[in-house]
């Protein structure tokens, strides 16, 4: 490594662009920490888990090769897999569009150029920074429990609310709400996207007599589709991977009655509560395939609705 530095450093950028490795050697050198992390901490374990998914492995004994048995079981006779799929898809279907819509709404309002914009921006972004943390999930428990803050407020207007987080009919929606509340990061990206839209387009539309809502649907949204696309893909992946809130709020059980049994939580239980690491690895790879399929679908469909030209 040291020799590579001394070799690369004094050399002017003569080769840049023409001969691959030589010119980009320094680049790869700078990438070394990331590459080490990627191969050592991401790709390596991922490949091992692919191997484990074809074994019966209880963490304590050596893995035993079982072929596709784990996948067969998941596909044919695992009611919990179906339950977890149901919960996860419902969560993704609700949380992603609602969060994006909310983020876009706030971004449009902030884009109006109100005073103290940086302050509001920071305030709205804050939940995204801390939202995935354990502390916030604990706070959420307090807010939505039977005698939590929400019910106390409702009691003032004479409504007796349920115990939101521990009632199987409402628990998942509290998690959706928690997700929407973390709208900050897509909001910032939307805001940046809105700033890119040239002002003269709106001026022209105004002169032509377009109303505010017409301007939004005919100009803002179409010109923003690349950003919508990006946010949509990122948020969908995030939603499929959601774990911490459900883990903390249900105390790791996915309860009550599996109503918050996210796919990742089920996977975690199989691996670490019931010591079925092989089976859990198979579950993990199925999630990888699902996420990949959704992302591919988004990319394939994008040419029909994403407009890249300004």
């Amino acid at each position: 490594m040291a020799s590579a530095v001394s070799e690369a450093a004094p050399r002017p950028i003569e080769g840049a662009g023409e001969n691959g490795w030589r010119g980009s050697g320094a680049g790869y050198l700078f990438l070394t920490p990331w590459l080490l992390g990627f191969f050592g901490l991401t790709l390596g374990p991922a490949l091992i888990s692919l191997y484990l998914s074809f074994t019966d492995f209880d963490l304590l004994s050596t893995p035993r090769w079982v072929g596709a048995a784990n996948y067969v079981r998941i596909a044919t006779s695992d009611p919990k897999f179906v339950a977890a799929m149901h919960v996860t898809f419902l969560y993704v279907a609700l949380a992603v569009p609602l969060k994006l819509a909310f983020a876009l709404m706030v971004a449009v309002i902030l884009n109006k150029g109100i005073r103290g914009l940086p302050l509001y921006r920071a305030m709205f972004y804050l939940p995204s920074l801390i939202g995935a943390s354990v502390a916030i999930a604990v706070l959420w428990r307090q807010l939505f429990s039977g005698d939590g803050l929400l019910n106390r407020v409702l009691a003032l207007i004479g409504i007796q609310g349920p115990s939101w987080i521990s009632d199987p009919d409402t628990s998942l929606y509290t998690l959706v709400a928690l997700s929407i509340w973390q709208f900050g990061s897509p909001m910032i990206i939307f805001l940046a996207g809105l700033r890119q839209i040239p002002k003269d387009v709106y001026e022209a539309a105004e002169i032509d007599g377009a109303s505010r809502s017409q301007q939004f649907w005919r100009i803002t949204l179409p010109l923003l589709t690349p950003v919508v696309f990006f946010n949509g893909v990122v948020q969908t992946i995030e939603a499929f991977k959601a774990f911490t809130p459900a883990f903390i709020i249900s105390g790791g059980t996915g309860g009550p009655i599996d109503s918050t049994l996210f796919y990742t939580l089920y996977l975690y239980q199989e691996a670490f509560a019931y010591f079925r690491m092989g089976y859990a690895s198979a579950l993990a790879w199925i999630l990888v395939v699902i996420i990949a399929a959704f992302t591919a679908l988004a990319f394939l469909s994008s040419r029909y609705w994403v407009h890249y030209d300004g």
Partner: protein
Amino acid sequence: MTHAMGRTVGAPALSRRLLMTSMLGGALATRGSTAFAQSDLRLRMFWWGSKERAERTNKVNALYQQTNAGLTVTGESLGWTDYWPRLATQTAGRNAADVLQMDYRYIFEYARRGALLPLDGYQPAALNLGDFSPAAIDSGKVDGKIYGVSLGLNSTALIYDKELIQKLGLKEPSWEMAWSEIGDLAVEISKAAKRDRFTGLADGGRDEPALEVWLGQRGKSLYTTEGKLGFDDKDIAEWFAFWQDLRKRGGCAAPDTQALDRGEIDSSMLTLGKAAMGFHQSNQLVGFQALNKSKLGLTTYPNGGKGAKPGRYLKPAMMWSVSAQSKQQEAAVKLVSFFVADLEAGKLLGVERGVPASDAVRKVVTPTLDELGRTMADYITLISDKVGPLPPPPPRGAGEIQTILRRVNELVGFGKLAPTDGGKQFVIDSTAVLARG
């Protein structure tokens, strides 16, 4: 992070140890030279439990370090739920602590997979179990070898808010009460207390130990010696029906309140102020009292009526085991021995992990106990002639059956299944899990 640091043996680590020795009052001047001659020993200890337990355990470790120059014990603890995943991962990663806290539920799985060290060969030089009763020693045996050393005797216990029940002018629960009587008492407490979302009893329908005692009183058990279910769907349906009835009468916690309980002291209905009585373990009284302002009491789980079997049994509350991966096995065994046989250590530990199994330690500890500790020791004495034998070890998959019990109890509680259907569902799901292992 401390572990990573603890593993590097070098100058900084050495000076840190010396510093600690001197802080602990060891005579640095006289010991300094010999300390260098000795190998720098570090033992890791891992247990589950409350803050109270951590404090007591760390005190014993500090005491042990005082008399053993060149030795450092680093302790780490987690709650029960988080403990087992961590232990399994550490064991799989060949990074298990030297001394581990074990439970009767898991010791068979760990010992049979070679994760624990058989301790028989270390007796009596390193491991002093001289005045343990044979029953106490046997409770840590797997397939005839000692893998666990009892840290204290324990049994199931109904822990209740003594102060509140007295204030309400009601009769305290006692070992003479049957299930229906405790149920009636619970309804009375709920009515008299007049607090929002507060009931006399926590929902015990999801508690495996409660179910086990109830089954035992009917001459059945959770599992047979062959690792099958020891009861049928009618038994468990009756169990769910008992709780559903009590729920309807307002005697036990509503399902959406009970769902807040994560199975640890701090989220129990009693500690959350949602119920006056709950199904727990006798040694937990210390931990419960630490978190509850009101004065607590304990008694047995309800009895099975006249002529019924006791259902309950005395078991090691928890055990120390030594990891088979430990590089300092002998030192680890000696530390274990210190915890269970040393009189001073015994005084520091009290009965927080259960009543000591060693006669000598028990005799020294008993007079030093505070009222709480004495209550617990008296409880173990009270039930000693009212217990049955230790049940067969739980089979593979038993951990998941606890989850099934909780889930089906919720299905019944939230009105999604009738108790009889709940019974069928439970047997179907549990049988599938046991078959899968």
